[in-house]
């Protein structure tokens, strides 16, 4: 290799100007050096062991065959496991603990059956099939100008010969009909998917029975323990304890139980009455409670998860889904996280038999924010 060729310059077709001669005076030139390097072409092909040595090729063949045999053994393992292993047998496996023996053996059998074929085929391709590169040429994606023109002509002629362009009445009515024909299908689908929400997001089981006139008959429902379905007395609620509450009657439902539960669930906690903050909210929270016992909707005002975590020492409620944190001492105001407003409080009292009751239904919609919530 001479001094000048390593640059990849192709002396036979210099891209720059001619070499500069010393007797020419001041001539601008690049001395025959091209502006860009040229593509050197494919590197020389390197032969594999199996191309050069018959023994290596034989060895590769053997390896591929072993992989295929492994696949056959895997299939056999699957079949044996399917017919011999009871589906209920458990087995202890390191790192993964107890698991179904049937699942383990069937899975391993299937895996070996498939991996044997796959690895065998790839190994075969890599060792024995041709590995000389093949070059295919590309062509621009676009059609030729004539073809494009031909297409445009066909479409225009079609439009012309159908007389669409000359008959505006047809154009207008056809366009309108085409624009509207999907409407019946869309209306059917959209209109029949479900009932209108009306005030359903704003009322809960605590509102009582719905009368014939659509108004709710107010009833002071007892607070029932969930899932025991028993009423609860203030003396049962010790300081620091928390109870899951449903309105009486809800847990006896069958068909609608989950629908009602998703709105009516309540958390009942007892605080020391002095724990409430001396703010308007704090005082209101205490007043709506009973001797420091307060009831709040359990449905998070963010996206509706149950607010399931109660921190006794700080009196904070935490939603496990997105970590909205509510301060019970200050009427469950949001002190952290994405919830936009406090958990609604249920005003409680005690009935003649000494059981806790709801004095009134929730005074605002429970659960996640919605447009009409107001």
């Amino acid at each position: 290799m001479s001094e000048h060729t390593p640059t990849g310059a192709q002396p036979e077709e210099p891209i720059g100007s001619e070499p500069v001669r010393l007797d020419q005076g001041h001539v601008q030139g690049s001395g025959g050096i091209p502006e860009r390097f040229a593509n050197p072409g494919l590197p020389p092909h390197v032969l594999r062991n199996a191309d050069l040595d018959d023994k290596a090729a034989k060895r590769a063949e053997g390896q591929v065959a072993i992989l295929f045999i492994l696949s056959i053994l895997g299939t056999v393992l699957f079949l044996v496991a399917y017919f011999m292993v009871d589906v209920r047998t458990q087995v202890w496996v390191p790192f993964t603990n107890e698991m179904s023996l049937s699942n383990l053996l069937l899975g391993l059998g299937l895996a070996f059956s498939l991996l044997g074929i796959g690895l065998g085929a790839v190994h075969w391709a890599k060792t024995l099939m041709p590995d000389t590169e093949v070059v295919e040429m590309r062509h621009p994606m676009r059609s030729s100008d004539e073809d494009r023109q031909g297409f445009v002509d066909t479409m225009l002629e079609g439009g012309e010969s159908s007389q669409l362009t000359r008959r505006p009445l047809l154009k207008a009515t056809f366009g309108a009909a085409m624009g509207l024909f999907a409407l019946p299908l869309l209306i059917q689908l959209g209109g029949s998917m479900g009932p209108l929400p009306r005030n359903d997001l704003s009322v809960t089981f605590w509102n009582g029975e719905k009368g014939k006139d659509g108004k709710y008959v107010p009833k002071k429902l007892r607070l029932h323990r969930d899932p025991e379905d028993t009423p609860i007395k203030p003396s049962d609620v010790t300081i620091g304890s928390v109870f899951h509450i449903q309105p009486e009657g809800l847990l006896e439902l069958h068909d609608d139980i989950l629908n009602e539960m998703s709105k009516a669930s309540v958390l009942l906690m007892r605080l020391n009455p002095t724990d409430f903050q001396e703010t308007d909210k704090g005082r209101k929270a205490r007043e709506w409670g009973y001797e420091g016992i307060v009831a709040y909707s359990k449905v998070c005002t963010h996206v509706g998860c149950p607010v399931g975590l109660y921190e006794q020492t700080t009196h904070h409620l935490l939603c496990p889904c997105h970590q909205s944190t509510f301060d019970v001492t200050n009427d469950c105001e949001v002190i952290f996280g994405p919830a936009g407003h406090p958990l609604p409080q249920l005003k409680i009292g005690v009935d003649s038999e000494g059981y806790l009751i709801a004095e009134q239904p929730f005074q605002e919609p429970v659960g996640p924010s919605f447009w009409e919530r107001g």
Partner: protein
Amino acid sequence: MTANTRPADALRADDAPAVAPASPGLKKVGGVAGWIDDRTGAAKGVGYLMKKVFPDHWSFMLGEIAMYSMIVCMLTGVFLTFWFDPSMAHTTYEGSYAPLQGVEMSRAYASTLDISFDVKGGLLIRQIHHWSALLFIVALSVHMLRVFFTGAFRKPRELNWIIGCVLSLLALVEGFAGYSLPDDLLSGTGLRAAQGFMVAAPVIGSYLSYGLFGGTFPGDDIIPRLYSVHILLLPALLIALFTVHIVLVALQKHTQYPGPGKTNDNVVGFPVMPVYAAKAGGFFFIVFGGIALISALVQINAVWVHGPYEPNATTAGAQPDWYMGFPDGALRLLPGFMEFETFGFTWAFPVIIGALLVIPAFYGGMMAYPFIEAWVTGDKREHHLLDRPRNVPTRTALGMAALTLYGVLMFAASNDIIAIKFGMSINDITWILRVLTFVGPVIAFWATKRICLSLQRHDRDLVLHGRETGRLERGAAGDFHEVHEPVDEQTRWTLVQHEETPPLELTSTVDANGVANKKGARKNKLRAKLHSFYFDGAVEPVSPAELEAAHHEHGHEAIESGDKISTH
């Protein structure tokens, strides 16, 4: 061979000998193929396809993994439909899983438990279904990153990029619909949140929710409806779009990495028959086998652990599948004070942004990017050679910034897990991630751009001064210097093949009548700004003249040591 031994009907002396008869097996194949070709004329087209050349690179297998895991997912999905009962009707569980015997639950959940405990091999099929779904979305996401960072989305492949984005979006929805079906506590909690997202939508929210759920949450309709979406509507769309995706790849021919012998006008690789038939076909079995192996050894979505869905039950550490992490993380980071009311109507922005806007924003940005980049660079040519990411520093940096944002949001979806595992305050973690949402992408952009430029300079250095051999030589004057070995022609080509920065060409802001076009001028100004942002700090490839100059700089050693160049 003499003339008289040749029978009369045999070949003439100078004819080529008859071809050896094909083996009986081959004849049979030929017979069937001939029967089909007589009726379809497919031989020509299929023969052409079988000779088609595909370039070889490990990163081209990412899309293949996505394709194969989707096929595995659909195959096992069909199996599952034979046992799964998509009904929310109440039933009492009486299967063989003792802890839940006698528990009231939906038929959907009970039949999922049956698949897991009473159908032989049912658990394996369920686990393969879930693992392949996860792998499908992992593989297609990484495949998209490959396509983005190598610039494979450029003309003529913008359409296929958009189809790919839609496929990825559909895959997310398909996955969400799928893990909502078992009706266990986790899947119900996901649906509960989804209903919360819907009602947050301005104006139409509650109508949307009551329409999709057929009334109050949870109602009886959502699982049968999600079921038909999951097994009919979305798979049909996925298969249709995926077919178009693959046909376009074949039509446009696969892109290839730059290198010696590879140009914008050719494809260098191996033909389908036999190499890719074996490699790609074998790879399907490897992917399927790999998924089966994981499904045998690693339990996923143990639906029996948390019991049936109840609206008032919950579990700490609930998380969606990984690909729904980024919107879920956004939901956790958005502060509650962003919710407010106007005229008695609620704007629940923490939910609207996190649940309803984050996904469209990400996908909108991805789909728009090829067009924005083409407008800024003014590049309207076809590109079949991929970019090395370092050679397009701004695109690479933008991609890393977006990926960082995605990563921060995804981490945020695990803020409770991180808090527990590392014993940190969840509020601190949330605040750190809130700051990182804004700062992280900026740092990532800056760092990536610097790294790209440094790598480019390193490439230049390698071309100009050769490779450091680590060998010291003692000069005539007693001095020591390290021997540098020039890179060979093929290696060098990969390092110098990319294009120089194109000059900015603005369109005329004066129309045919010589009247200044103000809007055009503003557009030009924006383009000029973006152009200089895009090409800021560009490092140009080494030119032959520069290499020549570098040789001369090293003077005599270069000549004396033959093809070895040394620096002082």
